[in-house]
């Protein structure tokens, strides 16, 4: 028996590493098959790199006004032209990506966190469910942008407040998704088996139900990410988002609106950036959903006998 134990221990770490690399290989293969998802992912990573390192590369300060250079068209000096205050549009877009992606990212993280907690607990405790879900119904009844505007009006314009307002807007959506998955997981026999072992509710919720909700949560979070960016842009466009001198794609658009017939570049370039960011995230999210949901198998189905699982 003693020898057997040492044997198995030696084997185990080996087995573990080979298995993990095998499983990783299969996963990479699956990901690579979904070209749209890969494209979305690459575009998104490039955008993130732009936000992180872009500011070090551009030659102008986004706040620096050169009144003589107002509304110059794209040229060698100003690659994307200048705005109505003579600020370099390229640096404003690069700096603006920080604000926009930053808001999107923070909102996705915050609303995922709160949504996860709310969703899990409301799926497990019935009374809590009634209370929490009625509150989120109430929040979801008001259109997102409207609610965000109202909240911003109450909180006052600042980037931090944009994040807070949007997190409040999007948390119910995450909570709904988590709750619906958790409700079906809760009914599975393996949860009953854990109860038969005497596991505490905390353990069941966080160690056994939660891991099953993570993948749909991540998918939903990517959509929230892109939604948050659009909403942020909308808020900034309406003048209640990221406050004025700081650039964000939304308020560059707002500035461009006034001169749209004289300076097309001020609306086109930030517009393209918003579209790119939102589209890449949506493609990535769609691909991710297909990847984790075995039922959507790109239209093809393996069908064996009826009982075969």
């Amino acid at each position: 028996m003693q020898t057997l134990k040492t044997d198995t221990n030696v084997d185990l770490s080996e087995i573990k590493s080979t298995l993990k690399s095998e499983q990783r290989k299969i996963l990479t293969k699956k990901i690579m098959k979904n070209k749209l998802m890969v494209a979305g992912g690459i575009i998104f990573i490039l955008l993130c790199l732009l936000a992180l390192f872009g500011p070090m590369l551009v030659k102008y300060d986004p706040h620096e006004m050169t009144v003589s250079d107002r509304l110059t068209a794209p040229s060698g000096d100003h690659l994307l032209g200048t705005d109505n205050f003579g600020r370099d549009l390229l640096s404003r877009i690069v700096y603006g990506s920080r604000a926009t992606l930053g808001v999107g990212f923070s909102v996705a993280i915050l609303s995922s966190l709160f949504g996860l907690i709310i969703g899990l607990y409301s799926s497990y405790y019935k009374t809590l469910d009634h209370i929490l879900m009625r509150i989120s119904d109430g929040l979801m009844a008001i259109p997102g942008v409207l609610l965000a505007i109202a909240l911003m009006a109450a909180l006052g314009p600042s980037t931090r407040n944009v994040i807070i307002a949007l997190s409040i807007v999007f948390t119910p959506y995450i909570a709904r998704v988590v709750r619906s998955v958790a409700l079906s997981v809760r009914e599975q026999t393996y949860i009953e088996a854990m109860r038969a072992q005497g596991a505490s509710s905390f353990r069941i919720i966080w160690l056994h139900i939660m891991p099953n909700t993570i993948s749909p949560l991540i998918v939903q979070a990517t959509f929230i990410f892109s939604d948050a960016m659009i909403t942020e842009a909308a808020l900034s466009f309406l003048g209640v988002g990221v406050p004025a001198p700081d650039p964000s794609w939304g308020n560059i658009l707002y500035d461009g609106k006034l001169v749209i017939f004289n300076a097309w570049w001020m609306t086109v370039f930030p517009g393209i950036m918003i579209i790119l960011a939102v589209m890449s995230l949506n493609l990535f999210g769609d691909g991710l959903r297909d990847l984790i949901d075995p039922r959507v198998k790109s239209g093809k189905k393996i069908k064996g006998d009826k009982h075969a699982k």
Partner: protein
Amino acid sequence: MSQQIEERSPLLHIEGLKKYFPVRGVFGGLGGVKGYVKAVNDISIDLYEGETYGLVGESGCGKSTAGRSILRLTEPTEGSITYNGQDILQLSGKDLQELRRDLQMVFQDPYSSLNPRKRIGKILEEPLIIQSIGDKKERIDRVMEIMEKVGMRPDHYYRFPHEFSGGQRQRFGLARALVVNPKVIICDEPVSALDVSIQSQIINLLQSLQEELNLSYLFIAHDISVVRHISDRIGVMYLGKIVEEAPTDSLFKEQLHPYTQALFSAVPLPDPKQKKERIILKGDLPSPLNPPSGCVFHTRCPFAMDICSQAEPEKKEMGKDHFVACHLYN
């Protein structure tokens, strides 16, 4: 075998167990309780050490609810369940936790009973962590030992449940129950989701583990031939009640209750030459929401008399350890 049983006191003693599910009105809790589904209606079972008690019955007779009530996965409405001198229904907190070490359960569906996101090793280790047994290394050793016992290889430790077939998963389900060294295992239809050739593998495994570890099984199933093979004693359930209870051989020699007779005769035999007279029961199972008055079987019983719809039959001992609840034997 039965001689020995006589002298011992039961390991698990279930007395007058009842489980009623409230049926609520249209508006949930607001409408008030409309009635009760009497899923388990006053059953008593004794389970002795090292013995297998088979509980058979058709779907909806309450056999699974009975099994789940014993582990308090659903709170029984009434009755007492005594294990080792303590009433399970009175326990709470730490005592209940400790009791669960001795009482374990194996579930029917091997597909939904293992968490798809967890590796096999983690699934099997979990009961040990919950019961805080041993340290990390001891736990892994214990898991390895149990995996070997149920016929799986150590390199399955890091695999996911979906990589295995139904039979293999059921072995892991069994391993999870065994890992804390229980005395009693409640098997809720452990083989009914499996194919015939796999079914016999699991039955043999259950039997050899019983011999090796001196386990007691409460074996809940609808397949009568399987129950016959594995059980020492059998209880036949109908609509929340045990209508007949007897040692296996005695029950198969002679079925006393008309329901048992019909049930046994309905089992298709894998032998075309053995043409026997089937008793075809008329009608369907009555709703457990309002079970028939008197004897619950009288609506479908070919021998029903006047008294059957009026008085509930008492349990009577007809042969040695052979009990039946039927007015025919008054």
